[in-house]
């Protein structure tokens, strides 16, 4: 029996998983249109390679990856491209992004596709295929899987497969494990091969006995060695990658450290499944399992084409008239979607139709009473009450010093806070401020350089003028040839110093330019806009929470 580890803190919110696990996964019907965002992954937005009016087949690539950190995007069914434009997307920024709109022809006609002989294909080629198939992390992080399967020459001990699914309401991984366990395990074995990891540990929370049984049975059937399904205690957030790694291996991966450096890597079960489908069957990532739950008449899991409009999907589960908004993800870390018309993306694991009855608005915040209930539950061992104080007083240096970066925004602290303080909002605010400031600082450094150079030029002109003046005077006083020669020498020397200085300044300017602060990409602009928007919201929040904003008079 393997000994499991535990992490500090954690909470036990009501799980609400039973509602959506009564019926098997249902394939959602092809919607009236698909709005497929070109930016569904961490990294660079993919570049559209189709045009309006093009007819595309199911599985045909419509966006090619741009740069190393990127992934491909495909047509989820066959049909005609009707638009390539900015649309609201399911993303926490609430900003529009570039999307390909596809009107399905209803034939669902596949592009020619076939799997590869995995055993006889080079790892680099397999990674390339993952990238081409648009496989990204389906646990919500949507990090391109091809990059995560590269161990960077580190000796890999453990591959962790994350089936914990600790967030309330979400059951998509649970149902996937119950119904498609073998494919998940093939995928896990494939990822293990790519990483050259010694063992595979599959962690599943013990509130999913059916999934655990199905996976254990599949391990025996498949006969993979050094692959173990482990039941882990139900405590939120055990499904956080860092927390699950800690539970299964005892290894702690700090913020800013690659887990491969510690010899472990973690993939979600759905990612393993999709990786297998992509390589063994040549099916790019076109659909995913999504839990539709909350304020609907029959909550359940659907296999949904990427790009399906939210309201068409929710209608399948029986929308209710008093639904006021939709949450993507779970109630602890999910995001409030900007509209019911956005479409589902690779990051959408769950849609909760929400009404004021289901999630009542929080009571007004009171000041922090330092009760440290938040610190008691923080899985990152932080002192949330201190971070809150620093964020609120805009003391970002201190917030960083107190390891704000290690906060995984799990929301456990805000969940227990008796003063109802929206702690995580303050952390998001502080993080975006810190990010915005580092961008601003780069820009400011650049401006200062320009300013310094200008000062230098003005100085140089002054000196030259003075020199010319002096020369004239001297010419007038005594036009002696020897004198002239001397002067020329001095001037030369000075000019050389100046030239060197200019070269230096130029070199610096080039160096700064490489950091790309001058010409901001749409991504960066979007990010900054998002930061500004959030900042404005936060100021509003702080003004509303108001009551406790008075600093102590001491």
């Amino acid at each position, binding site marked *: 029996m393997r000994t499991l580890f535990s992490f500090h803190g954690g909470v036990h919110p009501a799980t609400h998983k039973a509602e959506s696990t009564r019926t098997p996964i249902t394939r959602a019907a092809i919607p009236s249109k698909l709005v497929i965002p070109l930016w569904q992954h961490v990294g660079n937005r993919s570049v559209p390679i189709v045009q309006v009016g093009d007819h595309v087949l199911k599985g045909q690539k419509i966006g090619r990856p741009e740069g190393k950190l990127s992934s491909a995007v495909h047509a989820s069914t066959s049909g005609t491209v009707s638009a390539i434009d900015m649309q609201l997307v399911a993303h926490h920024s609430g900003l529009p992004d570039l999307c390909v709109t596809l009107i399905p022809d209803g034939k669902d006609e596949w592009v020619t596709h076939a799997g590869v002989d995995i055993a006889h294909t080079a790892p680099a080629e397999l990674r390339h295929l993952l990238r081409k198939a648009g496989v990204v992390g389906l646990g919500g992080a949507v990090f391109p899987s091809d990059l995560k399967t590269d161990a960077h020459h580190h000796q890999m001990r453990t591959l962790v497969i994350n089936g914990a699914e600790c967030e309330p309401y979400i059951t998509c991984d649970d149902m996937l494990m119950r119904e498609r366990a073998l494919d998940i395990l093939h995928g896990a074995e494939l990822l293990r091969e790519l990483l050259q990891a010694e063992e595979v540990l599959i962690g599943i929370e013990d509130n999913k006995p059916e999934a655990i049984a199905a996976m254990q049975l599949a391990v025996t059937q498949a006969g993979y060695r050094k692959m173990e399904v482990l039941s882990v205690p139900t405590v939120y957030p055990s499904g956080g990658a860092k927390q699950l790694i800690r539970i299964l291996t005892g290894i702690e991966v700090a913020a800013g450290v690659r887990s491969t450096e510690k010899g472990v890597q973690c993939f979600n079960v759905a990612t393993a499944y999709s990786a297998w489908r992509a390589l063994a069957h040549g099916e790019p990532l076109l659909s995913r399992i999504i839990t539709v739950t909350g304020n609907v008449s029959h909550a359940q899991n659907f296999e949904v084409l990427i790009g399906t409009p939210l309201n068409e999907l929710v209608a399948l589960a029986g929308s209710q008239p008093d639904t006021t908004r939709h949450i993507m993800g779970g109630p602890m870390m999910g995001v409030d979607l900007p509209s019911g018309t956005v479409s589902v993306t690779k990051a959408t694991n769950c849609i909760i139709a929400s009404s004021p009855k289901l999630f009542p608005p929080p009571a007004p915040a009171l000041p922090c009473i330092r009760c440290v209930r938040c610190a008691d539950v923080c899985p990152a061992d932080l002192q949330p009450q201190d971070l809150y104080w620093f964020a609120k007083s805009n003391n970002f240096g201190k917030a960083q010093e107190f390891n704000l970066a290690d906060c995984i925004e799990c929301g456990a602290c805000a969940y227990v806070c008796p003063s109802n303080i929206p702690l995580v909002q303050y952390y998001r605010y502080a993080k975006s401020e810190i990010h915005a400031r580092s961008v601003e600082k780069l820009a400011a450094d650049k401006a200062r350089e320009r300013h310094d150079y200008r000062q230098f030029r003005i100085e140089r002109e002054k000196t030259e003028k003075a020199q010319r003046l002096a020369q004239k005077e001297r010419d007038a006083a005594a036009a002696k040839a020897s004198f002239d020669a001397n002067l020329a020498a001095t001037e030369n020397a000075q000019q050389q110093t100046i030239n060197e200085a200019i070269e230096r300044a130029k070199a610096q300017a080039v160096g700064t330019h490489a950091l790309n602060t001058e010409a901001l990409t749409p991504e960066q602009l979007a990010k900054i806009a998002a930061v500004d928007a959030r900042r404005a919201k936060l100021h509003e929040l702080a003004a509303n929470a108001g009551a406790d904003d008075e600093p102590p008079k*001491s």
Partner: protein
Amino acid sequence: MFSSPFITQPNSVSQIMLRVLLALIPGIALYVWYFGPAILVSITLASITALATEAAMLKLRKRPIKPFISDNTALLTAWLLALSIPPLAPWWLIVVGTAFAIAVSKHLYGGLGSNPFNPAMIGYAVLIISFPVHMTHWLTPHAMSGVELSFIEQLNYIFNGVLPNHLTLDAITMATALDTMKTQLHLGLSVTDIRDMPIYGHLAGKGSEIVAIGFAIGGLYLILTRIITWHLPVAYLAALFATAGIFHLVDPQHYVTPLFHWFSGAAMIGAFFILTDPVTSPTTVKGKFIFAIGAGVLTYLIRAFGGFPDGMAFATLLMNICVPLIDAYTQPKVFGKKGAGK
């Protein structure tokens, strides 16, 4: 604005404080049993004063009144202060003390969550410094004095200062068990002689020792229901016990037993209800130990060598001052950085 998490645990400051108030009830019930209902009068007076002062201060500070007045923290301050002063004290004493505690030591420091000192203990400190005589008229348990004031007679004394004709103040009040111990030791009596005096029971003062047990029971309830953690009370009582124990071992005739210290004065109510005020105690576990041990040792030293009848209040206030420093030096290591040698 809506943002995750969208769910919260059903708890609130107001509920937490209500539980703390509930946990005081066994102690208060035993108090009434042994000393009569006068304490209920001071608790009521203190509560009314606290709520009125709280409302007035919130209004002055232009804060929303409803969420704050219903947080039950002012009531808790009132109850703790009322339990720290003699129940037969004139009515204005508790009113002045409570008003000061709420207005000055809470609101002038920024209100809920921002006060560095425990408001009830500030109220107590102000009263004992300004009105030391009134603060020594503790009721004698009626089983001992043989006289029992009726509720009306108690009210008459609290509000008008009038006692029934046949009684003097001395007949119904006395110094506390701690105070008597200290005075008699000064007079040269030994601990054994003093303990034979009728005011003492099995552990400490007759009656008051049982009340202390009542508070301890309430405190255990708070720990079991996770309203407070065990660290502060356990460390405090252990430190008090250890310090008293050392002195007692060295000279048992001069230094009374550690158990006597546990069940005298404000030690029990302090350990479970006063030190554990979250606002004025450290946030880290290590910090809690330092804080509570410091308070335990100081309580003993003030009791044994200081000029005040009890040491709990001043020990708490002295340690309150150190809290920011303690917190700053006891930051725990974060995830992934443990054992990184900081």
